[in-house]
């Protein structure tokens, strides 16, 4: 019997400095939150094996420096990405405003084959903090305008929605890599990447 091929999915986390990229990655992979992280210099990555549908995939999650000046390094790291995670801080409007430029810059540097179909996932992080500056609605509108990007509101600190978000990320990355149809797609617990489920998943976390 043919052995299942191991799949490596490369995921890039982008967003302004201090929105919690490193924290999200570590919360997801190591199930830990620390307030001791320093500003990321260069790039780092962690890997995690997950099961998406019936396949074991290895997520290689790349955490990058948040200052846009370091984007020039990007080209070395973005290459071959299967999914791009954009992160903003729901309490900091500027981090939301720069999402467009992060997305554009990624598409330029990674130059995926089909830029319009390349999977992005948006995470609004720090929902545990007050006061909130970017409403769920506004974020969802942005997502809608960008080819219906899935949106999750997370808290790396409280581990809110992190698992779900990355499950969706892995799934999107996998779809990007292989367009094969899987049996488990019809399983009840999947996260549907439509607006309705987004609303649901935001429901537990949204504080407003």
């Amino acid at each position, binding site marked *: 019997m043919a052995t299942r091929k191991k799949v490596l999915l490369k995921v890039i986390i982008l967003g302004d*400095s201090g929105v919690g990229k490193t924290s999200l990655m570590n919360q997801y992979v190591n*199930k830990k939150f620390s307030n001791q992280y320093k*500003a990321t210099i260069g790039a780092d990555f962690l890997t995690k094996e997950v099961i998406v549908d019936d396949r074991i995939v290895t997520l290689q999650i790349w955490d990058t420096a948040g200052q846009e*000046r370091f984007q020039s390094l990007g080209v*070395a790291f973005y290459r071959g990405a299967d999914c791009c995670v954009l992160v903003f801080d729901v309490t900091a409007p500027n981090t939301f405003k720069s999402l467009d430029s992060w997305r554009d810059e990624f598409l330029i540097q990674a130059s995926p084959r089909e830029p319009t179909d390349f999977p992005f996932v948006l995470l609004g992080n720090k929902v545990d903090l007050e006061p909130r*500056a970017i409403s769920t609605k506004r974020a969802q509108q942005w997502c809608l305008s960008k080819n219906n990007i899935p949106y999750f509101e997370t808290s790396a600190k409280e581990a809110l929605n992190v*698992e779900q978000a990355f499950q969706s990320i892995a799934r999107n990355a996998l779809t990007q890599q292989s367009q094969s149809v899987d*049996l488990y797609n019809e399983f009840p617990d999947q996260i549907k990447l439509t607006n309705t489920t987004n609303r649901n998943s935001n429901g537990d976390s949204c504080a407003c």
Partner: protein
Amino acid sequence: MTSIQDNDYKAKLIASVKKEVKQVMEESVTKKFVHEESGSVTSLCGAVEACLSQGLRRRALGLFKTSSTTALLHKIAKHSSEAALISKKVIDLENLDPNRRSSSSSDSTTKPVLMKNLSFQNVNLLPKYLWIRLALFEKQLSRIIDYLVTNASRYYDKDALVADPDYGSILSSLLVGPCALDYSRTKTADHFWTDPPADELLQRHRISSSHSTPPPVRRPIPNFRRSLNTSSDESTNRCQTQHLAKDYVESLHQNSRATLLFGKNNVLVTPPKAGQIEPMPGYLSLHQTANCLTIKWTPNQLMNGFTESDVPDKNIYWDYAIQVRLDEVVYVHCHQDVETGGTVILVGQDGVQRPPIHFPRGGHMLAFLNCLETGLLPHGRLDPPLWLQQSYATKNHKRKRPLPSLVENEDEPKDFVFRIVDSSNHKEISVKRHDLMNRNGHMVTKVRAQLGSSSTSSESSTKSFSIEQSCTINDGSNVCIQAVCESMKRQIISRAFYGWLAYCRHLSTVRTHLSGLVHGTIISGENAKEGLSEEKWAELFVEGVLNNPDEVYKLTYYGGVAHELRKEVWPYLLGHYKFGSTVSQREELSEQTKQAYETTMSEWLAVEAIVKQRDKETQANAIAKLSSESTSGEQVPPQIQRDLSNDVFEDISDYEFDSNEDLTDNEEKQKRMKKTEQNTVIYEGSDEEKQVNNETDALPDKLPQDDEEVNVDLENLRLTNSVLEEACSSTTEHNSQIEETDLRRFVGNVIVTNPSVDMSNFSMEIRRKSSLVALTEENGQSLECIETHGLVSPARSACVSPASSNGGVYSPELLETFGLNLHRIEKDVQRCDRNYWYFTCENLDKLRNVMCTYVWEHLDIGYMQGMCDLVAPLLVIFNDESLTYACFCHLMERMVENFPNGNAMDCHFANMRSLIQILDSEMYELMHSHGDYTHFYFCYRWFLLDFKRELVYSDVFSIWEVIWAAQQVASSHFVLFLALALLEIYRDIILSNSMDFTDVIKFFNEMAERHEAQAVLRIARELVLQLQLLIENK
């Protein structure tokens, strides 16, 4: 949902379980065991979970909170003893893991805690489908599911899979098989290689390298020589001794990088180094990796574990072990012997024989050759082939049989020679040898093309085969030997020539590219190893004057500076203090530095106040917008919208301009005042609206009074200072001590340097504010409210006035730029080394001040991430803001080029490449085989921060001072050699795991702050010296 769809879905679920069961059963048959962590187990559990989830009455059972079926297990544990057992185990496991809450049992997917006995470091997490997994391993799963099926009505909807009379029983019976299996916890080869963390790699390396610790620094010339004669005997052996020790642990077994094709114990070999005649028994193995086949032989003494006591020093056996790459072997000579099982001798390209391998009886030699032949495919083959296709006898029935005489029980001993033909590059050989072949007229053309000329030499001495077995080459043998000798001669000469050529190229690379990296003159480190100690310092620092820079640099370079002296020595090393300066000169310098620093600081503090104010308002805007969005739907009421879009900043300047024009028009002014107050306060939200109204209503009564008293009076200003201070300190959140002095100067600054500021307006503003504060206090209003006004006023009065009336002391662009930088600094300072004892809030503020001052002075450069990391160690040593600032400026002269706008990083990468090429060709080959320059991005942080993040604080100090001193002593690119030293320290790990770009990044990120700084420094200095010698030698 129709029942047909439902049935389809159930059928699919069952089919998937079937598929997974089949997979697991097959695995158990083919591999003899199934690993607990095996992917097929996980998949099976997943399929089972899916079946169990379908139609589960979550709501009725109170299970709706979890998505997994773990809760179901706990539920049925009351009724089923099997379930109770598993449930208990699950709870136990979860309790072991502090990171988990028990409710979310199966939602995670990570390395399991079950395998705690494994060497993975990060196995503190539970696997997915924990309970199903456990139940399977405990062989209880089918019984639990049986129970569920029997009692399905209690837990499942009636159309659920489990409740289905057919599917339910199918499900439980399907699982009987997997439940009967034994699952292994032993790590198997396929699992062994899943991303071992750095710890694990180090550990493995330590185990395997205990026998021979390879010298960390490689001499370039021997290295180079080795690559020239890769196949010469002593070089392979040298290679063996270095590599075999660690290969032993990993490579003798099957693993994902090498397949074990053949293995036989008690194979006798006379090791070349042993010097004894008796052949030794050992383990012979044949491994296939992606690029080549390797034959290994390990003495039995090494194979029988490490506990044998009769061997005093096992290390010598490592020298005996043999490792031969098959691509270096051209001929395989087989000597059959009636007595023993046969002997195989491998002959290399250079004609040198490897030690004979004596097989025991029992067809092992044939088996070995058989495996060898299989392993060579498809890129190579044995010639003649071991197995002949006897197509002559019966055309239609092709029959395979071994060469007739290779079967052991043949009567007389026979010898054979096989040539290993590499079909990937044999073309040129066949062309070259064409004429030679023609001389040997008996050869059949078909075979001829495949045979290299040199083969004939050995063929002549032993019995040779061609496919047809029809030729004898006795007549032509003399001619052949001559031709072969000639060709060998040519080969030897050309090899020597190419070797020489390569050597010349090598040296020219060194000269052209690398001579600039080190200083030409070698300064010896004699008597300098102990560094700049207190005694040495006392000798050198005479009457407050430091006169001997060379000595200081040399001592620092070779031995570092005593920690207590760093505060004094570092300013010299960084170039802030001049050598030979007197105490008073330095004091003067310090005073100047301090004053300049404070002046600069007061400048940016003023701007900061404005920026903060604007932020507050934007923040308030955003919140107001958000709350209006959430309360009143999509449309923001037009009134609020207008207010929101009003930039308060502009509004105020507007107002001041007006008040300048017609100061006497009280009514007008009051009206405007009212407006601004509304503007600023309204953002606080609707709750406070009432308060605000009260306040603004009360204002006009008081204001005219104040207005009459308006006069330009410094005294007055001083009086209001206290209010200002209070306000300002809450704005900037600085400690009030600094703030007070700065603010004084700052106020003075505004008055003196901007004479065009309308003074009356200024003081009036302050008055108004103070009255406001008084007013609010009188009214006993909330503290929040007072703060709001306090925040608004000083910023507005102090900073906006110059801007508005002077026509752009601070342009909007400048405010924008500096504001942006401020935010970044703020973010990064808070995150900078907060785990280091020095960085308390107070000291973080100092760090922030230094950083802001630098950025204010270098706005064109701006703040870039990483700068904080560079300031921090300086501040820790100096604990003085202005000195830190001055030294940081000096440091940045060199470092700024590393940041994205400079081009030093690319230079570093290019130099690294050349250096590795020269100093470690093996490493270079590895990196080269994996691609391009991107490999050096793992050095990015090293160079950007001078290794600050790679080392613990105390080591950062010692590395930094050596880098600074090295500029004068040995190399102004010392960081390169530090980077090389780091690579060299772990080179064996990198090489033996053949790490690629990502592996290396991960490895070094995990190794951060765990390097041995003194070793790194020592090796780096050695590397500098090595390069210096190399260049000197030209």
